[in-house]
């Protein structure tokens, strides 16, 4: 080492070592502060990639920190298997909202992940056109008439057909089946992320350009484009629950969203466990927090605002 880096490096090493030893022996702010936590341990909440999730997870995290004195880490993570793996490994304890319709079965069977009930939000998925189109072409919201308007949706990327913007990667999507089963003259384009869809819908509505895309509720976009619901394109009523067996002829089902917790948290059975198990709120609650978040508040501020306005609900979650 010495021949490689010379004397000065040696000096640096000595000083840093001295500083470290000093810091090891000296007393610090820590000693006077004492332990920060109450009887709640330290847990990690998975943070998935959409605004509504951030809203729910941050509300739970803020209550746990302020009311229960837990140490909460929030780890940004892809939804689905990677998260279940992390739960199995003990690095993630809570998923506050999972749309996956049972894809966690393997992990639950192994005892690594535990279902912790519904979170009160109901997931509704569908295909939506930009609302101005629904006003101008009233019959467009019936799936049978889509082909009549397919030409409007042509873009440079859709190969002479209408562009059909499919949902983000991890979401339940059957667009390819819907297009082929209903013989729609559309090409499926995989948007890949929530950001891409938000961009598509807002620009289409602002510039009055044609757009048909995947949307779901609860979602903050419904707060930003208030009449988005009017653009809901209706397919025949749903007849499936497992996307793998869907024919594609019918619409998406509505599904209650599920909370998942790690075995570790389930076994701990402490105040945080019961907070997560009791947590339940409505689509409107979530949309409100998520809209504040999108409006420029930090997640913690938006969550705190909701918590302050709903003290009684928070109390009921805490079992007080």
């Amino acid at each position, binding site marked *: 080492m010495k*021949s*490689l880096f010379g004397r*000065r490096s040696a000096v*640096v090493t000595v*000083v840093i070592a*001295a*500083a*470290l030893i*000093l*810091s*090891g022996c*000296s*007393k*610090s*702010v*820590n000693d006077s*502060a004492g332990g*920060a936590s109450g009887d709640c341990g*330290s847990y990690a909440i998975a*943070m998935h*990639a959409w605004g509504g999730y*951030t809203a729910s997870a941050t509300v739970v995290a803020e209550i746990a920190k302020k009311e229960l004195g837990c140490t909460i880490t929030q*780890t*940004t*993570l*892809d*939804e*689905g*298997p*990677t*998260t279940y*793996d*992390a739960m*199995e*490994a003990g*690095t*993630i304890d809570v998923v506050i909202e999972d749309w996956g319709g049972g*894809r966690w079965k*393997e992990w639950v069977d*192994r005892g690594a992940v535990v279902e912790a009930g519904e979170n009160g939000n109901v997931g509704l998925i569908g295909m939506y056109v930009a609302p101005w189109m629904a006003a101008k072409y009233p019959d467009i919201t019936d799936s049978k008439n889509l082909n009549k308007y397919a030409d409007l949706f042509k873009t*440079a*990327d859709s*190969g002479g057909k209408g562009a059909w*913007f499919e949902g983000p*990667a*991890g979401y339940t999507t*059957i667009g*390819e*089946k819907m297009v082929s089963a209903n013989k729609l003259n559309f090409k*499926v*384009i*995989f*948007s890949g992320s929530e*950001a*891409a869809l938000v*961009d*598509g819908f807002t*620009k289409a509505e602002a510039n009055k350009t044609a757009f048909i895309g995947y949307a779901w509720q609860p979602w903050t976009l419904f707060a930003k484009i208030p009449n988005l619901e009017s653009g809901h394109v209706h397919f025949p009523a749903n007849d499936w629950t497992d*996307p*793998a067996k869907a024919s594609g002829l019918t619409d998406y089902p509505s599904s209650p969203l599920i909370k998942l917790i790690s075995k570790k948290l389930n076994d701990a059975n402490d105040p945080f466990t019961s907070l997560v198990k009791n947590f339940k709120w409505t689509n409107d609650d979530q949309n409100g927090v998520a809209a504040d978040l999108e409006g420029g508040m930090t997640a913690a501020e938006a969550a705190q605002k909701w918590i302050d306005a709903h003290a009684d609900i928070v109390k009921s979650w805490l079992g007080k």
Partner: protein
Amino acid sequence: MHIKKPYLLLGSVAIWILLGRLLHGKNTLQIDTYENTSFTRFIGEKALELRGNRTESPAFIYFFNPIRAVIDGFVQFIRNLIAVPAPNSVIPVIGWLGVVALIAFAVFATSALRTALLSVSLLLGCGVLGMWQFTMDSIAMTLAAVLLSLSIGIPLGIWAGLSDRVLKILTPFLDLAQILPTLVYMAPIALVFMIGAASATIATMIYAIPICIRITSHAIRNLNQSPVEASESMGSTRKQTLTKVQIPMAKQMIVLGINQTVMAAVSFVVVAALIGAPGLGKPVIEALIIRNVGQGFVAGFAVVFLAILMDRSTSAAAKRQESFIPPTQAQVKRKRITLIVSAVAAVTSVFLSRTMLWAAVWPKEITIAPQVEKVTNNATAWVLDNLYIFTVGFKDLISYSILNPLETQLSASPWYVTVAMIVALALIIAGLRTAILAFCLAMAIVLSGLWYEAMLTLTQTIVGCLLTMVIGIALGIWTGRSDRAEKTLRPFLDAGQTLPAFVYLVPMLGLFGPTRFTAIATGIVYAIPVVVKIVCEGIRAVPHSLVEAATAAGSTTRQIITKVQLPAAKKTILLATNQGLIYVLAVVVIGGFVGAGGLGYLVIVGNSKPELQGKGLIAGAAILLLGVIFDRIMQAGAKRSG
């Protein structure tokens, strides 16, 4: 009869287009995204099995899990020192003032006062941006990954420097690692080591170690051989020659290798957040999620600051020239005194940062993050509002004129026609051996069942590379011919090379919408700096005498560029094209997040849908195969043209 290469190339392209037209839509191997081939289903099942076995199989209990635990512990130790409080504490071992003082002292002692001051302001800059803790996390992660990388890379590099056989065995792996797009190997690593700091560190090491090995072995190999021979002839043992002659002589170059290793690790900071690494990547990715461009840039600036800090402090140590005039007694004394004083100051600061809360935790009030966020948000909004019409027009122009025809040609032709074409190109440009390799790799993609998606990605990469080269060569010539231009552009190029692609993915999305072109544009921005730098070097390396002779003969500037400088730099430009292709490929695949489809989308979807996991893993492998095909053809082509 000898036919000229360009005619051969033109001829085969013509045949290819003709065949593509004739057999349009046949044997395209297109399958729906939700469908598996029997091969991808098999891989998916194996991956699921692996997941289930992690708590039982001996390979995990005795090998992978201990590695994970050790690396996790190491990272956690460093994080507890500077970034996060250990359990039952409220502050990390050393607070912000201590960290600043220690880094300043270390930089001052190893290089110069100016660099030390720069380091301090960069660190304070990260703090003012509201990113102190994220920055410390990133420094901790980088430090851990670099230390581990060096402890493997330097010994291996020295060994490869001494032994031809070792170098020969290592070279294919080094080449492969250089082509490997980062998005690709995250999933397999996370599969084995799970999400978290350990996976992120290992992924960083895979990226950084090859660079360290390459430069170290290069350093040992390119030494002036006479001192080595002298040492051997005087009867030194091999070990003595190595430790007393070779390593000290190669020192400067090895330190450069350390610098490059550090930079590789820093450039990984953001991507690593995708598999759960703590640090600056987190706010960047979160900004992408909630489409807060401003927040993304605030975090992105902190990444750039960190990169500059790491680069300047390590390269200054490498460049520090020993003066030929020995320092006078007084100078030595003065230096010693300043060193001692600053050492005392550093140690005092560390002490303060443990006892005083203001020196321990970065004061939240000192921040300009909201302002920076607002300014960038407004600027982006202005650009989007006013340029959207132009950017969409440009996007449509490129889409209709190049992208769509090429995509039709590649993806709607039968697979055997395109494979034959790739092999023919390889044969003409690079020779028989490369052609055979290209054939095998292309067939592997065909057999994997992901040929159609591979062709989509290939189209985007080719178009991205074409545009990159048009802009890159123009800027490269400009900077190569004018020092002033080089000086003006340099900071932008440096920043472009360190600013993570995820930061400008969202603005690009705003400009071009959820389309293939967004992916291409992001790839172009990412690849241009490296292309400009290589082309600039190439232009500068053209002998002055050639240029002077042409000037004397009365050539115009245009003639000098097209007739003298470009032809003389041909080989470098080919290499730049190769780098451009690989860079564009690496970023085009993250376009899967913004509507570009192709292999990148399959990788992303494989991460979140268990039933498509096998398809995602194979898509990653197919991206790598595409990269290798390109790389081999271009490298061999460049060698031949030399």
